[in-house]
């Protein structure tokens, strides 16, 4: 029992050494680590947002809005299809709650043809290579003359997946414009995106930048309508829409529904200054399709005002003085310099597929994070000191063994955290502290057992052997219960709380090694060296 084969000794020292080597970088400042030679381990523990400051924003994509958008498009497609077939119809309606678009066919003779063609609107999920066999639409007959197109669950899930994917890409491009280090943008659950940006100070600006849908449209102002009159009478001409500017008070405009060019055709957009007025502006460039469309539209409408619309608000409505053929232009809308640069980022990054709402926000300032690190470190060192003193007071030399093992245990925790790139949070530090209690508990169990065995009259070596052996099952059993609740915590927890579960789990597992194997090795060396007649315990 107390005899260690050579390979085991090497293994134990190897693990201890590796733990210390991987933990060491954490003792140095990040900047001084960079000047170290490349063979030195560089990984340091990532600090959680609560320790280094930063923003944690959980966004949710509005599913209903997405369905509504889809149904609107679907309705247009149904109208288009039936118009092309010259089939007359009635009661073309949509139902968001039921996720359906329904239509009635007037002539019974047209029904089969309409049904056949509307069925073609349904696409297999996952494209034509889709393996699931499911379609995104369910087209069915309703009564004698009705046809119902229903968005299927599979179709909705697929659209949600691609919308979330696209949102993540867009958000990433926007957050990157801030130039912060290592932002993390991840999907969470079905319709959520978690954005974590360490070390950011202006969270309001970040939220504004991410929250903007960024849907840009160029549309004509209806020259025949009087906006003020329309506001009063509430009679908007057909094919027109009443929109307001972003000013306070908002200025009403009557805008054509037809979109000349949209943001999808933008290839670049940059902030700049107007050469004449020196006012901050945003310049943009279209792709070839966009440029062609814009050129034609401006040629046809010289002298008329058109509107630049962002997310349903009129940014500006200049008059077309001459055809714009080069495919580039500028937006001026009384911007401040940061507004212009944020708008340029929004346009450049493309529109979000649907509106995102913040459902959870946790922001910590850098100063609070620094305070937390300071007080956490102070509390940990104080706790360590108390435990070490107490263990020595209670068990003398054997307490010293336990204390050495405890320090190695803490080094191992930091080594593993650095190696797996896990995040250390304030509750995580508390987890390390709790581990200190649990780790020495194993030694308390062993030492108490040894005392009992000595009292029962066994020899020193036999007592120690029996002590380690009999305490082992108890240690495993008792650590298992803590591990079970920690695993549940890991599964439930998010962010900071999860950090607690991580350090506690690593700590408990490491303590099985340090408190049992490592101390036993120390005790066995000591026994061989001192050959004591009595055990000082």
């Amino acid at each position, binding site marked *: 029992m107390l005899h260690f084969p050579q390979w085991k000794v090497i293994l134990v020292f190897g693990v201890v050494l590796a733990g210390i080597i991987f933990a060491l970088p954490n003792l140095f400042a990040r900047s001084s680590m960079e000047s170290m030679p490349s063979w030195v381990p560089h990984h340091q523990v990532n600090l959680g947002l609560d320790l280094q400051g930063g923003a944690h924003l*959980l966004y*949710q994509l509005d599913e209903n809005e997405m369905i509504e958008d889809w149904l609107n498009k679907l309705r247009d497609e149904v109208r288009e299809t039936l118009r092309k077939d010259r089939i007359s119809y009635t009661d073309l309606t949509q139902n968001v709650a039921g996720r359906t678009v329904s239509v009635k066919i007037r002539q019974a003779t047209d029904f089969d043809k309409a049904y056949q063609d509307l069925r073609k609107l349904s696409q297999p999920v996952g494209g034509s290579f889709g393996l699931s066999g499911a379609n995104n639409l369910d087209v069915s007959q309703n009564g004698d003359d009705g046809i119902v197109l229903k968005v299927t669950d599979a179709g909705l899930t697929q659209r949600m997946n691609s919308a979330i994917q696209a949102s993540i890409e867009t958000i990433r491009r926007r957050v990157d414009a801030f130039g912060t280090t290592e932002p993390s943008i991840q999907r969470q659950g079905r319709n959520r995106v978690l954005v974590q940006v360490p070390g950011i100070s202006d*969270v309001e600006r970040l*939220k504004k930048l991410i929250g903007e849908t960024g849907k840009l449209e160029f549309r004509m102002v209806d020259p025949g309508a009087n906006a003020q009159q329309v506001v009063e009478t509430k009679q908007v001409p057909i094919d027109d829409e009443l929109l307001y500017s972003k000013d306070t008070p908002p200025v009403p405009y009557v805008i054509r529904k037809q979109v000349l060019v949209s943001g999808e055709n933008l290839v670049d957009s940059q902030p700049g200054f107007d050469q004449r007025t020196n006012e901050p502006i945003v310049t943009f460039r279209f792709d070839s399709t966009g440029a062609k469309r814009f050129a034609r539209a401006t040629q046809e409408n010289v002298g008329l005002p058109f509107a630049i619309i962002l997310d349903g608000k009129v940014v500006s409505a200049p008059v077309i003085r001459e055809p714009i053929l080069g495919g580039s232009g500028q937006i001026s809308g009384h911007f401040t310099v940061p507004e212009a640069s944020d708008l340029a980022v929004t346009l450049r990054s493309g529109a979000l597929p649907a509106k995102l*709402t*913040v459902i*959870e*926000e*946790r*922001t*910590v300032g850098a*100063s*609070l994070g620094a*305070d*937390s690190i300071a*007080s956490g470190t*102070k*509390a940990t060192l*104080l*706790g*360590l000191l*108390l*435990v070490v003193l107490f263990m020595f*007071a*209670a068990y*003398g*030399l*054997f307490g010293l063994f336990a204390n050495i093992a405890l320090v190695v245990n803490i080094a191992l925790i930091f080594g593993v955290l650095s190696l797996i790139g896990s995040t250390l949070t*304030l*509750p995580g530090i*508390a987890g390390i*502290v*709790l581990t*200190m*209690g*649990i780790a*020495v*508990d194993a030694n*308390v*169990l062993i030492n*108490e057992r040894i*005392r009992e065995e000595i009292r029962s009259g066994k020899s020193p070596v036999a007592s120690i052997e029996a002590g380690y052996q009999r305490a082992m099952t108890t240690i495993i*059993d*008792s650590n*298992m*219960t*803590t591990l*079970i*609740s*920690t695993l*549940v*915590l890991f*599964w*439930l*927890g*998010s962010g*900071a*709380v999860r950090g*607690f579960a991580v350090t506690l789990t690593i700590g408990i597992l490491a303590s099985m090694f340090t408190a049992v194997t490592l101390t036993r090795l120390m005790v066995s060396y000591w026994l061989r060296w001192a050959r004591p007649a009595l055990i*000082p315990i």
Partner: protein
Amino acid sequence: MFTGIHFIPADTKIGFVRLRTISWVISALLTVVPLLLVWKVGLNFGIDFQGGTLIEIQTKESVADLADIRAKVHGLNLGEVQIQEFGAPNDVLIRVAAQPTEKEQQESIAKVKQVLGDQVEYRRIEVVGPTISSELIAGGTVAVVIAMIAILMYIWFRFEWQFAVAAIASLVHDVTGTIGLYSLLQLEFNLSSIAAILTIIGYSLNDKVVIFDRIRENLRKYKKMPLTELLDLSINETLSRTVLTHVTTFLAMMPFVLVGGEAIFGFALAMVWGIVIGAYSSIYVAAPLQLILGVKRDSGMASAPARAKTQARARA
């Protein structure tokens, strides 16, 4: 050579189980009074479970003018608003009740920031919308229940069902006792409180397992000893360990209560309390419950190899 101080003498003979009438009353009170407290006084639910906005600010002047801040924020008509000092005299915690929608909630921060201006430093802002808070309530409850069931299964697997039931009963005692502390001191009950409770469950059980282990061992060793005596013997034999291990964990955790900072104070205090109440329930709840549940004599030989070994020995 220094052999260590024997804090607890080796041969204590305290009648923990013999004097159980008194401890039953105390344990019952420790379980019921917290429930009454929660029922009558209630818990101070944090924004994790209630939804709402929490803003921690630090003012430039050394003592924050709470009345002024209160007047400014109350003027916004955002519903219930709490303003309190947080740690230092120039640290202020502002809590704004949940707004009906996520959008209004976001607007409420902007409004508070507008009236407080740039003269204060915004140290922390937390916003939990109604969607998340209801999910967190469900998640937290499920986690505690699942942890309990998983532990019950483990103890049942390793020991007899009587031990498992005793463990769960004492865990309920620990959990209600901890929740009672939250209610009594009106500590904020949030996600980290659930973490504290889960950890207390795991840690406190760790201790019970050690005593159960000893009871099982003694059941095997002393076949004729009356159960009351045997339980007392087992508790006394492990008493030194029980006390020492709780003292070390207590010592490790206590600095967090004292100097760990306001952000983790509630969590650390709950842990420390849980350590104390866990030690109590190991001695006075988990072990004596065996009497009522009537643990069987052969429970020490539950595992098949052990049984085979004894049979072999009997034949020899």
